[in-house]
């Protein structure tokens, strides 16, 4: 790779990193605004116009609070916990294609940080590591409630990972590739996977809620029984890191769902638009770049809709009981996911037979 390509890649990675953090920051604001709207309140409105500086005020408050470590806690692991949570949360956006290809100075720049032919597995691996931040933090706190929260998080994540993986297999059977760029490219125009995989998407959505520990699956931190769960003993910015990692996870889960099922950067009539633009501007490069940037816009619109959906559900549904959670995961979602695989396989064979 040439140094210019490397430079573009570095800029792109930094931009995506910045956008991830920015979206996670403002997710906290919009979560409170949406909660306020749903509960017929006003929500944060003091810091800045319409309360827009609220996330900065929150971060400032967290940074200036006393950084407290319990006396009998395992100090190294206590500090390591939130760090791992943050690290793992920011890792997964590396393989997600946020856009197609830009043409700059005759170079093809793909709007994806790294292209690996196992992109889906990479995301899956990183997601499965997310639980370590919670477990290490919960155990190192040396507190029964923290430990219970951590154990709940671990068993919940492991249970729902299975259904998640099985629902993904149906998508992989259709696309025949593990590369996210390939999966995104196959959904060109309006040929999105959601039309073929409605059941798979539903399973994946439920599992995404469980993996990000969001209501109705926020058993690890259920404040009523566990006083806050795995982060009971945390304060200051360490607590902020845990909460921040959750919002980053929501952003990443939304990106993955948009990429796998809702056509990533593709939007209806994109080829017609590109053909028309080529005629209108007389330049293939400009037309391609305009369509690509529009695609990036559409990708982010889809991601924002999913983030809104996460928040909408949080303020609508009550929490599951623990045995209900396990029953849903093992006795409903996994058989449904296997059924979905069988149906998809049958559908593919039928299509080959008929056409």
């Amino acid at each position: 790779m040439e140094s210019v390509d490397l430079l573009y890649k570095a800029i792109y990675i930094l931009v995506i990193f910045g956008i991830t953090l920015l979206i996670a920051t403002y997710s906290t604001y919009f979560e409170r605004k949406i909660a306020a709207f749903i509960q017929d309140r006003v929500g944060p409105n003091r810091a800045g116009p319409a309360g827009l500086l609220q996330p900065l005020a929150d971060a400032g408050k967290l940074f200036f609070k006393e950084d407290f470590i319990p006396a009998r806690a395992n100090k190294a692991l206590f500090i390591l916990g939130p760090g791992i949570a943050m690290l793992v949360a920011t890792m997964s956006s590396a393989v997600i294609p946020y856009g197609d290809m830009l043409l700059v100075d005759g170079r093809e720049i793909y709007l994806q940080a790294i292209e690996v032919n196992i992109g889906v597995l990479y995301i899956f691996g990183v997601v499965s590591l997310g639980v370590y931040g919670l477990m290490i933090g919960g155990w190192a706190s040396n507190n029964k409630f923290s430990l219970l929260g951590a154990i709940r998080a671990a068993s919940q994540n492991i249970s729902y990972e299975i259904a998640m993986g099985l629902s993904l297999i149906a998508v992989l059977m259709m696309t025949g590739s593990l590369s996210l760029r390939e999966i995104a490219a196959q959904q060109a125009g309006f040929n999105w996977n959601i039309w073929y995989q409605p059941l798979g998407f539903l399973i994946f959505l439920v599992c995404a809620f469980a993996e990000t520990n969001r209501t109705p699956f926020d058993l690890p931190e259920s404040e009523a029984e566990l006083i806050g769960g795995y982060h009971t003993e945390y304060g200051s910015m360490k607590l902020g890191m845990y909460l921040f990692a959750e919002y980053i996870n929501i952003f990443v889960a939304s990106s993955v769902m948009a990429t796998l099922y809702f056509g990533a950067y593709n939007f209806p009539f994109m080829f017609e638009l590109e053909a028309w633009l080529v005629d209108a501007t007389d330049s293939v490069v400009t037309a391609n770049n305009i369509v690509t940037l529009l695609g990036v816009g559409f990708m982010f619109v889809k991601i924002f809709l999913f983030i809104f959906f996460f928040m909408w559900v949080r303020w609508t549904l009550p929490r599951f009981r623990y045995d209900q959670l396990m029953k849903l995961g093992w006795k409903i979602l996994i058989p449904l996911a296997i059924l979905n695989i069988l149906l998809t396989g049958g559908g593919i064979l039928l299509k080959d037979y008929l056409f």
Partner: protein
Amino acid sequence: MTESLFYFLASLTLLCALMVVLSKNPVHSVLFLIITFFTISGHYVLLNAQFLAAVNIIVYAGAIMVLFLFVIMFLNMSKAGDSKIKTSTISKFAGAIAGGLLFIVLISALKDASVVGYTPETYNSQVGMVESLGYVLFTDYLLPFELASVLFLVAMVGAVMLGKKEEGESHF
């Protein structure tokens, strides 16, 4: 570049594997074992076997090690604080003798083994990719592959049988 990366990874692997045995705290041991799995995945990536690297992380670091940690954290709960393992002198002797025997067996096995090199001209760099791996698994090694899956099924049924509640036993 690749060579220095290999030596770095290899020394890290050995260091972490040693720390698994040497650290006094069982939770630290498990965490070092997780790092060991990561470094082994790094070796797979160096060998261009991306699929194995990812699956190693997902299965071992992501699932099995979580269960290890899970169990050890539960066992530690009662006597939190002093989690030092106490070993008697007899078990230390037994461990040393067993480990030494294993070491001798390994040395005698490796003494006569010849190192299989590879020829750069015929080497196929795509051999570790998921497509070629899947192709080999479902053609040349179909029977062992299916037998292994049946074995997993048997193990799963056995676990369910062992964990099943007896009739009349109280819930929770």
